[in-house]
């Protein structure tokens, strides 16, 4: 079987990160990563991208938005 090329590694990156790639392809991809620094960087930084979006807490609700939301409920409940 011909070795996986960089383009193919990039095409599979999403499924690889989601653990949805066939075990055979995972092996091939990881063999490629062993000797290709560029692909290692792309895989690693894509993984970090997904992680950082998940881990970063949302900012606090802006104070004026919170006030208007509370106001909306107060009006609703006291009708």
């Amino acid at each position, binding site marked *: 079987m011909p070795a996986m090329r960089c383009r193919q590694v990039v095409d599979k990156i999403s499924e690889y990160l989601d653990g949805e790639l066939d075990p055979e392809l995972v092996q091939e991809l990881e063999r490629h990563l062993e000797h290709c620094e560029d692909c290692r960087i792309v895989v690693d930084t*894509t993984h970090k991208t*997904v992680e950082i*979006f*998940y881990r970063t807490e949302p900012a606090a609700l802006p104070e004026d938005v919170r006030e208007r939301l509370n106001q909306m*409920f107060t009006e*609703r409940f006291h009708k």
Partner: protein
Amino acid sequence: MPSHLDNEQSMVAAAQAGDSDAFVALLNQYSRRIYRLGLSITGNRQDAEDVLQEASLKAYSAIADFRGDSRFYTWLVSIAVNEALGKLRKRALWKESSLDQPRENDEGSYIPLEIESWGEDPEKACLTHELQQILAEVIQKLDPKSRTIFTLRDVEKFSIEETAKLLGLTIPVVKTRLFRARLKLRDELTRYFGKDARNAMPTSRR
């Protein structure tokens, strides 16, 4: 069962029995996440506020119908996503494009532009509010449909199947757009966090 979920179940039960304070308390736990969701999808503060308000009212009116077979938050998100999609449709920002036509032998086709490892861990390199600002900025570089898919899958952690169902899209469309969104965001973030980053931090601590 984790105690916060146990507590949540009793709050849901109280809200369903007509306790409006319990409903507001439940909602307050998630309001900033719903606002971020609305902002990510619509890209617009006013729309995000409308999404939060309208989803909250709809959830309040429909709380008796909530069956408890999903988490309250998941149920609230599905209401908010519908509101946000309504905003996009109204502004004609949710439409078919060539990205939605799967092509043979062309799985995702995205050529990474920035090949550079990241320097210091971004969570150590910048303050939380700086990071929040950077993430909010870069996600807006995606088109509305792609950023909605990315938000549901990678921020809210819905499965591919759930994301497709919530958005009325096919699984291949979700996968292809998710793939490109992740790589595009990776390029954008590398401009901030790469070892030789060209973008300055919002308030530079480098």
